[in-house]
């Protein structure tokens, strides 16, 4: 039964994710005084991609063939590690839902992304592959510093356990270091969703999408879904730890979770739309320093035992 709900969690996320993207695209268009596409546009896009023929670069190897599936596997496994429809009472799955499992599936995603970018030997994909790695270098430590406060405070790396502990109120916002960590963690997770000012998942060649410059047809459709899933997962990662609204019934918690994620995802447009765009070194270095400072404050408070 646990596995059934896990599958449901995965499939419903896949089904709803394009809708969130559509809504945020519509909202962004309205901000820019355009009519904008229909909110179902992302579904249409994916459907159309599935039907399209493909071309591939001469240099590609097996990595090009398997990269879409590997990206999908890592993003989907990340989502499965979020304890939404199951909790610590699930005998097997709670041994899967671990913070480091989630983080390292994110790393697997990044690894495949970079390697796939280099494989096509497209000039832009190489640059954006490098960019992807550099973003990882900047964000990873901030994310981990915030998580240290959570993990050590809660005394476990098990996500289901932490989530339940915080929901019961045994550990949480009454601890200053925890609440400060929440701020920095949300910041990093926003960066990980790949939006402005750090990245722009649907436009510029030299940014995130550059890696995918040579992908097309069904491969591209699968990668699109994987990226949407990853965006949902990283926001969900924040929600599961810092706003755990869980209910007895798995379906109810799933619906509430998707609602929360959708809200955060769409609200991201407010930063996205009004934020400037930086070059890699200026943007990341300058803006991530604030997040790093916040997370270090939280860590220092934690070390002092506050």
């Amino acid at each position, binding site marked *: 039964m646990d596995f059934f709900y896990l599958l449901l969690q995965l499939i419903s996320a896949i089904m709803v994710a394009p809708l969130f993207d559509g809504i945020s695209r519509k909202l962004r268009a309205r901000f820019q005084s355009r009519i904008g596409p229909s909110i179902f546009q992302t579904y249409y896009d994916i459907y159309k991609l599935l039907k399209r023929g493909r071309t591939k670069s001469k240099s590609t190897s097996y990595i090009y063939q398997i990269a879409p599936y590997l990206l*999908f596997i890592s993003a989907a496994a990340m989502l499965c590690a979020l304890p939404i429809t199951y909790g610590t009472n699930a005998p097997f799955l709670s041994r899967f839902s671990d913070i480091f499992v989630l983080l390292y599936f994110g790393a697997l995603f990044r690894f495949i992304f970079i390697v796939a970018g280099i494989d096509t030997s497209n000039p832009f994909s190489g640059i954006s592959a*490098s960019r992807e790695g*550099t973003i990882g270098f900047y964000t990873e430590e901030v994310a981990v510093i915030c998580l240290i406060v959570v993990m050590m405070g809660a005394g476990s790396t098990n996500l289901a356990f932490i989530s339940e502990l915080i929901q019961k109120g045994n550990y949480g916002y009454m601890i200053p270091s925890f609440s400060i960590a929440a701020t920095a963690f949300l910041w990093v997770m926003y960066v990980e969703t790949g939006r402005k000012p750090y990245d722009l998942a649907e436009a510029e060649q030299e940014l995130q999408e550059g890696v995918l410059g*040579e992908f097309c047809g069904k491969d591209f459709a699968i990668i699109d879904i994987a990226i949407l899933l990853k965006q949902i997962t990283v926001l969900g990662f924040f929600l599961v730890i810092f706003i755990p609204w869980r209910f007895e019934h798995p379906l109810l918690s799933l619906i509430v979770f998707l609602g929360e994620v959708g809200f955060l995802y769409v609200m991201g447009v407010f930063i996205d739309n009004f934020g400037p765009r930086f070059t890699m070194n200026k943007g990341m270095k300058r803006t991530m320093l604030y997040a790093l400072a916040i997370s270090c404050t939280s860590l220092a408070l934690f*070390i002092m035992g506050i």
Partner: protein
Amino acid sequence: MQTIYTLFLVASILSLVLYKKPLLAQKVGFGLASILSLYAAVFFLSNLNDTLLWKLPGNFISAPLFRLEPLGIFFSFLISLIAFAVSLFSFEYAKHYEKKANLAVFASLFNAFILSMLLVVASDNVFSFMLLWEVMTLISALLILINDGKEASKNVMIYLGIAQIGAFCLMVALLIMASLAGSFEFSTFANLNISFGMSLSLFLLLLIGFGSKAGMFPFHVWLPLAYCQSPSNASALMSGVMIKVALFAFIKFSLLLPQYVQFGYILLFFGGISCIFGIIYALISNDYKASIAYSSCENVGIIFLGLGGAFYGLGTHSAMIALLGFIAALFHILNHAVFKSLLFMLSGNVYNVTHTRNMDLLGGLHKKMPITSLIFFVAALSICALPPLNGFASEWVIYKTMVMGGMEKDVVSRFFFTLSIIALSITGAMAIMAFSKLYGAVFLGTARDTKIVEEAKEVSFIQLLPLGFLASLCIGIGIFMNDIVGMLSKIVLTLIPHTSATPYGFISMPLIAMVMILCAIIPFVLLYLFKANTKEARITDPWACGFLYNKNMQIGSNAFTGDIKKALSFILRYESSVKIDGYFSKAVYTHKTHDFFWEKLYEPIIDAIMVIADKIGVFQNGRTNLYAGYILIYLCLILMFGYYFL
């Protein structure tokens, strides 16, 4: 166990005897080595929890005794396991050194090297330990020299120099311990009654002694030099197991000292720094072998983080942390031995067909060497600690140790453990970049130098067989993580007696693999449901904004790490230069990275020694009458000394 040692000795002598027929000697030497080490691996694995004793027959100096306890047997198993794969690989590989050295000598040294490592692990008194330790160092230095070249003697001297600094500290530490214990046998060393200061200084001496051999920061400078110089099978053995022997000895001796919390902190500190600096240099290096070598420094750092947790646990008497820390360290030692020797052998394959170590000349090798490339992919995934492979399994245990350590109420321990987790996570992020770059630049993309890559072809089956074996070990150890942890915890419980803690709350790797398979099905279902277009893809040039595609448009390894280099410019030294002669000729871009610590730490010392040596050189001027004068002065001094002090 004496049979194994004797047989290795026989194999070594036999291949030396055949020195007139090097090709035969190579077959015999490496063939015997692989059979023997397979036998040894099986033998040590089946006796994993016993204690083995062997006394050297005859009346040799100080009558050496060889004793293997479970920890020693585990390391002997590790040595034999890796030696098996490496010697099977060398069976074909060594032929490439036919012109450079006598293969009979190569095979003989190789066998002797395995034997010396096995004996170091087993030796049970100061005299035989130090002797065998030096023999091991010398044999490894000779193995490096097999690949003679322009810089060979300089690189070997640096290696030997750092090894001697280590050996000196080691000798001092062991002699002090022996004099305190009143005996040269290690078994009498336990329960020394010494003060905190004494214990700390012995610990530091041991750390320098073994850390320099293990490639710990700041003694890591020899790693890229020695490993790049030596033949790949020798560097696979050195990086895979020789530095593990140093770690074994470190664990063995430092456990004999009275334990304090500070030991843990020291190890965490050096571990964290080794991790970060190792991986930074691995990331920016353009030489794939140097990159793999620097990553040894990183992995030793990770192992030291595990050990730091363990020693902290011993110091505070928290059995659980000590247990987890030792398990994590031993687990990572096992994993690092497997994937690092695999990576070195793979780099040997690449070097043999391309004859260059520069990533910027390679690219597109996958099409020529598909199996090597596929195995490299597995090795790269596992060294980046990606699930569900073995690197992830051991790093997860290390993370768990750190989290357990950081939960204590003490501010200092929280400080050290949190900083080490951060170090480990930065290392993880950079390792992803380093190895994706390495794999991408060498195997993927378009060939940068078509002439080199066109001549490349896949190596023979027998050379790929051990690589496939190690790659499957990478996957197997990862999936069966919990069984390995169970096995290791039995060994660790012999190190820390009087505890009955059992590790709990581990992740389940088979489950992770299963979820991944489950997730893999979904896209195919999706493609089927929507009747996706599955027509064969049309093959074109990569898109280049409408310009004609040129292979130089793809990203190079320098450009790939450009942003990181800028961000880290305060600890990196690199020079780029552009050489353009004439308007129509091709510009030549060169890029060199310097080891910051080599310049800041080692060069001043070496310069000072050179100056002193120059000054001392005045005394040696070839005049006989002056030499007679020296003798006279010396005799007078001795007489005076004898008169007043004796």
